[in-house]
Every structure is written in structure tokens, then in C-alpha cells.
């Protein structure tokens, strides 16, 4: 099952990537689990997506909690708290 993952702002810069295509391994069914799974990609991911980082998550452009479930083709985004206005 594949999902599209987007990163914004400081997260995008830290990871050196704005978009990823991720094939979810069995057992990775929520946004929170995806975040943990991405951390295994290396030190920059571990740093940027660490549990202590205050991050916001969205699925298909709606803000969601870490418990939100994923389905094939979802657009998942991770980003820092917003600072517009």
C-alpha cells in the first residue's frame, strides 16, 4: 500500500525532500506509525520526526491526530506548527 508523504518548512529543509512515495510495510496503519517508520530511514529522519518534536499531521489536507488510519493513495503531510497571519 503506497501513500504520498509531504514535508514542509523546517522539516522539508532538514530532510532535504519535500515529497516521498512510501510503500507502507504491514503493520503501519496510522499516521503515528508512519512517523515512527520514517524515523528508521536515517539520522536526519530520526532528528526531524523524533517523538519530542511538536509536529502537525494532515491526511488528504485535513489536520489529524496520530491515531488517524491510512489507506492506499492517501496524501500525508508532516509539518511544524503553523506561523502565518
Amino acid at each position, binding site marked *: 500500500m503506497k501513500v504520498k508523504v509531504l514535508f*514542509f*518548512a523546517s522539516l522539508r529543509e532538514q530532510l532535504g525532500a519535500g515529497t516521498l512515495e512510501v510503500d507502507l510495510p504491514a503493520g503501519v496503519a496510522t499516521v503515528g506509525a508512519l512517523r515512527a517508520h520514517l524515523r528508521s530511514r536515517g539520522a536526519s529522519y530520526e532528528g526531524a520526526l523524533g517523538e519530542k518534536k511538536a509536529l502537525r499531521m494532515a491526511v488528504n489536507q*485535513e*489536520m489529524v491526530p496520530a491515531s488517524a488510519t491510512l489507506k492506499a493513495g492517501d496524501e500525508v503531510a508532516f*509539518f*511544524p506548527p*503553523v*506561523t*502565518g*497571519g
Partner: protein
Amino acid sequence: MKISVQREDFDLSREVKAISGQTTVGAVASFVGLVRDVPMTLEHYPGMTERAIAAIVEEARGRWNVMDCTVIHRYGELAAGDQIVLVAVASAHRGDAFAACEFIMDYLKTRATFWKKELRAEGGSWVEARASDDTAAGRWKK
């Protein structure tokens, strides 16, 4: 209702006039946010930003008499003194116009997917979200 996320600048008087057409409008409240001191670049999440703003405007319409409304938020490179954001609300009376305008602005700060990066001589730095913005948005919860 007009929602626009754009690079270009906007003209306050033109936007206010555009929502003041109906003769039943008795009040227009507007807010303009400016870049203070330091030049910056604003990034956003195309698609989600517009949806988030639309949801905020919808919520304001459910709470107050909002006859028309315009929200413009810029992104890209902005210099000190540049206009960043406009919220303008037309209503029958000033109370609703003021309240809806402030509500939309407070919620924009915490829900619209924008990120500011200040561009100083020593380098760029992402602006940290402020707890006071959450407090400002939180006071509308009932």
C-alpha cells in the same frame, strides 16, 4: 466570499469596496497584517491552505452575521513593511463585523498552513509558533 492565496500584493480599498455592494451592509471591519522589521519568505501547503481558510470562514459564518468576506494571504518573498494578510468582513452591524474579523484572524494564525522564515544577514531562521497565538484562538471556544 473570496479566499485567495497569492504572491501579489492587494489593495485594501478595492477589496473593501468589493464586499460593500449590498445596501443591507452596514459595517465592514478589516485587518491588514504587515511584515514587521525583518524580510521573510512565506511557505504554504497549496490546496490545504485554501481549504483551511474556507473552513475558518465557514465557522465564522455560523457564529455571526457575515454578509460577505474576503481573506487574502500572500506567500513568497516579502520585504519589511509589505502587506501579508487581509481579512475583511461585511455585516449588517459593527459588532458582528469586528468579532468575525478577529475570529478569522486568530484562527488563521493557528490553523492555516503557512510558515514564515525570517531572512537576516546571518542567515534564515524559521519562526517558532507562539503559545500566545493558541491562547488567542482558544478564547473563542465555548
